[in-house]
């Protein structure tokens, strides 16, 4: 029964190597909550920009006729991982968690697992 800020803070502290995390409304591109980030990573800009990534993928799947859902999207940079996890169970709202990780410190499998747990905490 965490509130959003607590759940995001938990993501920052329990996920090794996390640089910032945001809960984003994917229709409007608004960050409903952010923790971390900073000068190098403006999470509100990242949130707005990454809605286009999610939308493009959703649209492509529609065009391909894939009736599947997207669990997460991974973007690998030279020094970071960006992990986008679409929240289920609240189809009408369309939210995703956006997590930026330091590639050298992060364990991707653990991060995915913990992000799934945090989604559960949000109970959205």
């Amino acid at each position, binding site marked *: *029964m*965490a*509130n*959003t800020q607590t*759940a995001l803070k938990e993501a920052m502290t329990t996920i090794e190597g996390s640089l910032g995390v945001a*809960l984003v*409304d994917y*229709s*409007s*591109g*608004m960050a*409903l909550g952010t923790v971390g980030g900073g000068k190098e990573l403006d999470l509100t800009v990242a949130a*707005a920009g990454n809605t286009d990534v999610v*939308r493009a993928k*959703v*649209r492509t799947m*529609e*065009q391909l006729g894939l009736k599947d859902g997207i669990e997460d999207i991974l973007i690998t940079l030279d020094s970071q991982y960006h992990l986008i996890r679409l929240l289920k169970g*609240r189809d*009408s*709202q*369309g*939210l995703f968690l956006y997590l930026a990780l330091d590639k050298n410190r992060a364990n991707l499998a653990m991060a995915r697992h913990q992000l799934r747990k945090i989604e559960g*905490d*949000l*109970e*959205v």
Partner: protein
Amino acid sequence: MNPHTDVPPAPPARPGGRTGTGPTLTVLAGERASGALLCEAGTVYLSEGRVVHAESPVAPGIDVLLTTGGRLTAETWREAVGHTDGPGGVGRFLVDTGRLSDAELEICHLGALFDAAYFALGTGTGPRGFQRDAAHWLGPVRPVGADAVERETRRRGRLLDDLWPCPQVDTAPVVLRSPDPRSPAVTRRQRAVLELADGVRTPADIARCLGRPAFHTLIDIRRLAAAGHVETPRPQATAPPARSPGPGAVVWPDTVPDTVFADPGIDLLRRLRDALEATL
């Protein structure tokens, strides 16, 4: 401090739409004021300079979002409203009885707040007056800084203009048209909007039917209009002054819309855009 009743047609609003006769949100936030900022298209509630709630006749309220969206039954909502004793009671009751989690209440409330604030502050003629110490019955859930609300309102205006700079589609009844076969595919969320387009319902009506925020529906409508799935009506001279484009947005000269947005022109523009997208 009384809200003006006969505000003359305002000149095109500056970005953010604040040309009204009332105090601006920024000024009120600086004074750490509490009360209701009355705007043409909605009301923004402040508590000690922070925004605690907003509502607009155009934007579905948190009750609609929660019940039509399927999260709560109308029965549960009524029960919660009936149980309130003092401000903040509805949300607290829903969380304490396990009907909603804290996070869900916050997310839904924030969604409704920013949605209504966009219409109150970003459209129409701006603030008309301030009712000091008026509070919303819902009570505070998670207050937001006034600067965040202003920034988000401006960002939303720019976002809509970037998608399709024809604000008349936001308020006109949604009329289907047969799209160019090469138009972008319609997503599931957009399909739900198209299914409710009957030539009578406006985007706000559709948002209410679907239990979705009105701004999100405007995004779908602008995208659908840009792709040619719904009609873009000609701008009307008598229409209420629309939100003016933010800095950097495309500004059409006054004389152009009649010619450019006539039907053949719109197809030409669309072909032009497709060709540009294909080569860039």
